């Protein structure tokens, strides 16, 4: 006779899988959320498949007979060429990588800082909370774009710096949200019970508080990515992006500085804008759908 030994860990994972399946069933019913997810899937596929879709040598091509400058889409490739004769389509495809990468990486940085600050402040309380929340207030009040601009100007233009700058200016809002949630969580009975059984603060924070705010963190992440992508666009437009890599924001900057507006070279500056618009919209739709899945009270607000 064989007894099936089920460890506590396995039970936990079974429960989590069930909860995830339940959430997915709920999410699938949410049409705007599914539309957003589909757009994101396409965007990520394009970004990942960039080397297959367009030769990166096209990013450095210069004005030749085959690559005339300012060629409109009927004369060259699907989207024409820019002031240097480079294919706009190639830049658009490769640019999606940087725009998505910066948006995602900056958001992860912001959420990690925000979660650590929010959980520590909310759970530990006392002087730690007072100090952390004072610093959070300060960062909330300093206007985001000017702060990002001076930081980027001081640190110099590079992809790591732009991720750092956006991440470090985006954490206060999530930190405040997470703290508010933690304040209600730490009064729950199961936290008291665990503490009575001798659990340390660290154990309580990582095993009881963190899993319970993870839904909030995920929904907030999805809603922070679009803000980060828009920030990357603006910073790149102001010349603070990585000068050696194409991104959608940098395409807008170069098209503006090269005079695409007076040339009426719409094929140069319209596609990156549409790319940003679609990706930001998609993340926003997904984020709102996730919020509603995770917080049933919000379902009523849907339009």
């Amino acid at each position: 006779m064989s007894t099936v030994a089920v460890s506590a860990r396995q039970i936990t994972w079974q429960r989590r899988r069930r909860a995830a399946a339940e959430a997915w069933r709920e999410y699938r019913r949410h049409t705007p959320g599914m539309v957003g997810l589909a757009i994101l899937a396409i965007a990520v596929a394009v970004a990942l498949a960039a080397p297959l879709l367009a030769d990166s040598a096209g990013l450095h091509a210069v004005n030749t007979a085959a690559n005339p400058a300012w060629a409109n889409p009927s004369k060259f490739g699907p989207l024409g060429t820019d002031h240097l004769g480079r294919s706009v389509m190639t830049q658009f495809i490769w640019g999606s990588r940087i725009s998505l990468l910066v948006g995602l990486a900056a958001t992860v940085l912001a959420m990690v800082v925000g979660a650590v600050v929010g959980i520590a402040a909310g759970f530990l309380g006392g002087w730690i909370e007072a100090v952390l929340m004072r610093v959070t207030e300060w960062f909330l009040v300093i206007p985001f774009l000017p702060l990002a601009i001076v930081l980027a100007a001081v640190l110099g233009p590079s992809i790591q710096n732009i991720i750092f700058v956006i991440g470090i200016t985006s954490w206060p809002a999530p930190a405040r949200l997470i703290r508010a949630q933690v304040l209600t969580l730490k009064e729950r009975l199961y936290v008291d019970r665990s503490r009575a059984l001798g659990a340390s603060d660290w154990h309580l924070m990582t095993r009881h508080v963190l899993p319970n705010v993870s839904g909030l963190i995920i929904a907030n992440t999805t809603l922070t990515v679009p803000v980060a992508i828009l920030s990357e666009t603006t910073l790149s437009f102001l010349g603070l992006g990585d000068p050696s890599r194409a991104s959608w924001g940098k395409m807008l900057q170069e098209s503006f500085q090269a005079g695409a507006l007076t040339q009426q070279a719409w094929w140069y500056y319209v596609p990156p804008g549409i790319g940003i618009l679609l990706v930001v919209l998609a993340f926003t739709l997904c984020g709102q759908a996730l919020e509603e899945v995770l917080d049933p009270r919000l379902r009523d607000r849907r339009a």
Partner: protein
Amino acid sequence: MSARFVTAKVLGSLATLAFVVAFNFFLFRVVEGDPVASLFRGRNLSQSQRAELTRQFGLDGSTGEQFVRYVGQTAQLNLGRTYSNNQPVASEIWHKAGPTVALVGISTLLSTIFGVMLGIAAGWRRRTKTDYAVTSFTMATYAMPEFWLGMLLLTGLAVGLGWFPVGGIVDPNSDATGLAKLADQAKHMFLPGLTLTLAYLGEYALVMRSSLLETMREDYLVLARAKGLRDIVVRNRHAVPNALLPVVTLIAINFGFVLSGAIAVEAIFSWPGLGLATYDALQGPDLPMLQGLFLVFSGAVIAANLFADLLYGYLDPRVRTA
């Protein structure tokens, strides 16, 4: 409002301002190198000329001495001199604030009015065509970079159709004065103003809509309907005034961004304000100018936040003790 509430809010704002001043100083000291050397590269400077320039830019002495001097000068509104044309930063900023306040102030005002109207229309007629149209429109304007919207309007209406000038604040070939000059300026302001109005309007519409939806669940609205008031009276007398509260706070806070809100849009339309000044200072980079701009932008936001807090305390008695 209690004196204690006001004092606490004012002291909090002053602490934030002190933090910004200190942060501003140390942030710009992270930059390595010698600005004097890089500015006058290729020119023969004598030892005394170099020392004189270093003193002019406030770069002599230890970091501690520089900090004390910086705080003292900032308190007297002396923000140093620009690298680009060696003018006092404070007067440069002062001269460029006017066009920005005019452009962003008018746009904020218009977007508030239209945004609140759209929000009311969408929220009151929930799940109708109006609601879906307003919600989609606000989502779309939120999702596009505002300067890209400006690029589209500029190429469409100014370069393409030629209805509006492509940039600047006045026609440089015109010597019009008085009303004619004002009309010329209004014409130049139209496109950047339209861009910013469209860009800001979505936020007000969304906040107004959700605030109105919240208010519509209140018992006093049910009562207002039950006693037989007409729909329009229920909306304008009972629902909207109560739902306006969060929007009023948002407006007060957003007025803090009037100075810094239009950096990229001003660059697109060559609007000679603080945004274009920031854009130009970044090309140098002209660090004293950026430092001064950052201080002014932050100060404006801190002041607006304080104002919003006090206004909220005045309008909503529940938060006065907070």
